[in-house]
């Protein structure tokens, strides 16, 4: 498999009035094309920071990030899809206007192509009848689906998911997990999921990156082989319990240290 993303000895410091916060320390990992990678780590260890660096919203302090063969920097033309804990749909826009927000921002001429893609995605993921609705008329699960489609419309080379399910209730979360997973797989996207939910990470990903507490370093990388099962089915898998314990131990060691 080809490497899509690579972190090489990445360090990152936040500068504040009181102190310099060392958030990431010599971080090394890579994500292959079409891989679904999860990053787990104690809260506050620097997971969100990693995503901001990939998206080019923050500059690395040292080291380098290679995305699609190019160094991530100020003038970054790689398209990235970003999903947050809350869906951040714009309440004043209809679903259609939310989904096509990214197209509106672009100055290109092949917009009709993109609109067509938006229409297709809406149809494919059962949201077509809702395109003229406002976000508040949709359920939490549907809203997250809209948020995902909003990023897919721009055909991003990489999706970044920052605890996108943590605001949903348990029932919804399980089914939205499944939805999002299936959409990402069928659209053939590479994705990085940040979460502190171990079972979510295990059931969704091909690669599990476990981080230490701040400053974050890679503690362990586990490659998972799921033979094409869906997240829901993976919860029933006989290895699930053992894996969960394994990750749990690695993480609690970390939390105890702080």
């Amino acid at each position: 498999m080809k490497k899509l993303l690579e972190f090489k000895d990445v360090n990152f410091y936040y500068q504040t009035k009181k102190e310099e916060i060392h958030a990431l320390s010599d971080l090394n990992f890579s994500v292959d094309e079409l891989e679904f990678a999860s990053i787990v780590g104690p809260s506050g260890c620097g997971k969100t920071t990693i995503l901001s660096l990939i998206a080019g919203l923050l500059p690395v302090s040292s080291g380098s990030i290679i995305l699609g063969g190019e160094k991530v920097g100020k003038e970054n033309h790689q398209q990235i899809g970003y999903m947050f804990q809350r869906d951040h749909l714009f309440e004043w826009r209809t679903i259609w206007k939310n989904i096509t927000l990214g197209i509106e921002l672009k100055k290109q001429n092949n917009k009709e192509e993109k609109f067509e893609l938006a229409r297709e995605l809406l149809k494919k993921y059962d949201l077509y009848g809702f395109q003229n609705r406002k976000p508040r008329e949709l359920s939490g699960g549907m809203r997250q689906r809209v948020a995902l489609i909003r990023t897919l419309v721009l055909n991003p080379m990489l999706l970044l998911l920052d605890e996108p399910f943590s605001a949903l209730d348990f029932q919804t979360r399980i089914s939205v997990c499944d939805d999002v997973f299936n959409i990402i797989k069928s659209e053939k996207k590479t994705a990085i999921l940040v979460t502190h939910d171990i079972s979510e990470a295990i059931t969704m990903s091909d690669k599990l990156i476990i981080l230490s507490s701040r400053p974050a370093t890679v503690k362990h990388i586990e490659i998972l082989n799921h033979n094409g099962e869906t997240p829901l089915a993976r919860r029933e898998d006989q290895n699930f319990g053992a894996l969960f314990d394994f990750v749990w131990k690695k993480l609690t060691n970390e939390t105890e240290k702080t």
Partner: protein
Amino acid sequence: MKPKKLKLPKCAPFSKAHERYLRKLRNDKIFVLFFQILILVAVIGLWELLAQTKVIDPFFMSSPSRIFNMLSSLFASGTIWEHIGITLMETLLGFAISTIGGTLIAVILWWSEKLRRILEPYIIVLNSLPKIALGPIIILWVGSGMGAIIIMCTLICIVMTTITMLNAFVTCDNDKIQLMKSMKANKIQIFFKLILPNAMNEFISILKINVGLAWVGTIMGEYISSSAGLGYLIVYGSQIFRIDLVMASTVLLCLLAAIMYIIVSLIEKWHNR
């Protein structure tokens, strides 16, 4: 492409409980309206009664019938239109200038964090200063009359507008801004597609506040210096002991302010539809 209509399951026929609920809703509404009207009628009636029976002196306290007569003669002679027109014009201009100007200043301060920090203490001082204190200075500088009154009115509304809108701009959710940036939006796009529409609720509420404040500003201004307008009539009436004139002008002011408030409420309804 025409969007498909969403199919909802047909509503079941309303239950008895639902019917009862609707009836209660309607009855409550009638109840509230009834007492609202009752209070108005009672106050006017009592006032008139007390004046007619000379329990209160109508010369000092006026009475509804005297106010009504004054209003009819004012409208019959037609001079009142000029006063209404002038006051309305001053208020609307002050309202428009301060709402638009205050929002524009807020945009500039949102754009430049440095400028925001530099000007912050001045804005705080301006906000806590009773603007009416500046009245004499304004009159000295621009002369008495409409110009001075519009400036008074603008001063009273604009600082609050700037503070409220700036606060609405800068408290926009950071993740939403990150989202826009990840879609490679520039600062202008972030403003027009996110910051501004996100602040619409605050804008509507500042409209409502300014409707009230603009009237305060205009009438204050007219009290200090004017030769026409409803505020002028009130001052003039009190100086020549024509309480009926004072009261009639006040009634007109109430009506005008209410109409303006209703218009803003309609804008709000339209925005929330």
